[in-house]
């Protein structure tokens, strides 16, 4: 299949599965483009993730960076459109209904049902990114643990955690 077409179709499905936003589908994106299709390596994926985190702008741009790495500028456009499109159409429709559901039991139940899934998926994303090939590297885990701690315990701008990661990385991976 044409790679752009496959990227577009696949990311459209991810768009509708991305409960809780883009971080939830990172592990699936990694599974597909790195492990299943082998379009890019784990290191490529990590590079694009790091760039997307460090650059200003919405974090969904990580998906267009991954599309760019796989298929150049057309890949970047296709993945961004596919990642946002189906969810955008859904939001456009639901926007009107949502207000009417305010205070209904269904809405409260659905929101409570989603919370533990979202947390489990975001945790998976962190684990997959910091554990290449499923084999632990204590240096990656130390950096990740430090940044997780800083996020929970302080009100620092996350850019400081990324800067700290850069400094520790330069030191630990020489």
């Amino acid at each position, binding site marked *: 299949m044409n790679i752009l077409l496959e990227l577009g179709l696949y990311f459209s499905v991810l768009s509708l599965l991305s409960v809780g936003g*883009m971080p939830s589908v990172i592990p699936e994106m990694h599974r597909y483009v790195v492990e299943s299709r082998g379009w890019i390596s784990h290191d490529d994926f990590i590079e694009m993730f790091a760039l997307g*985190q460090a650059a200003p702008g919405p974090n969904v*741009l990580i998906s*267009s960076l991954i599309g760019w790495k796989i298929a150049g500028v057309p890949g970047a456009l296709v993945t961004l459109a596919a990642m*946002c499109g189906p969810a955008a159409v859904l939001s456009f429709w639901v926007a009107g209904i949502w207000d009417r559901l305010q205070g209904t039991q269904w809405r409260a139940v659905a929101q409570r049902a*989603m919370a533990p899934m979202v947390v489990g998926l975001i945790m998976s994303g962190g684990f997959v*990114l910091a554990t290449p090939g499923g084999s632990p590297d204590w240096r*990656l885990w130390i950096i990740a643990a430090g*940044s997780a701690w800083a996020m929970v315990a302080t009100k620092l701008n996350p850019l400081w955690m990324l800067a700290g990661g850069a400094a520790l*990385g330069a030191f630990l991976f020489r």
Partner: protein
Amino acid sequence: MSPEDFTATIGLCQFLPGPNVGNASIVLGKKWFGLKGSIVAFLGFFGLPFLWVLALASLYGEFALQPGVKPVVTGVAAAGAGLFIGTAIKLGKPIARKPWALAVLMACFVAVGIGRVSMLIVIPVAAVISYLLAKRGLL
């Protein structure tokens, strides 16, 4: 727009699948200017950052093979992974005392993070189970 409206809109965008900011631009654009508003808001929100991030990536490509670059990038990515874990801990605090919520959380983590099962399977299954649990007041 009142603060209550704003909170309700953000709640909706976090609830819907898809990038939150993308959804917010659609919902807010629609509120004031209909479909045209949605499209303009969406393009306005993504246009410049998209070009900017691609320019940055191309620039990075020039330097990627220099010695010393890879360790830094590896460190940034690990810190980014830590931000995910931190987010999960923050979001997880309010539900950590509910045993069924913890069970769903761990099941998702084991299936997706460790077992590497496709989310195309995990999400629908987990959604049904989680919804049934929530309906009985267990979540």
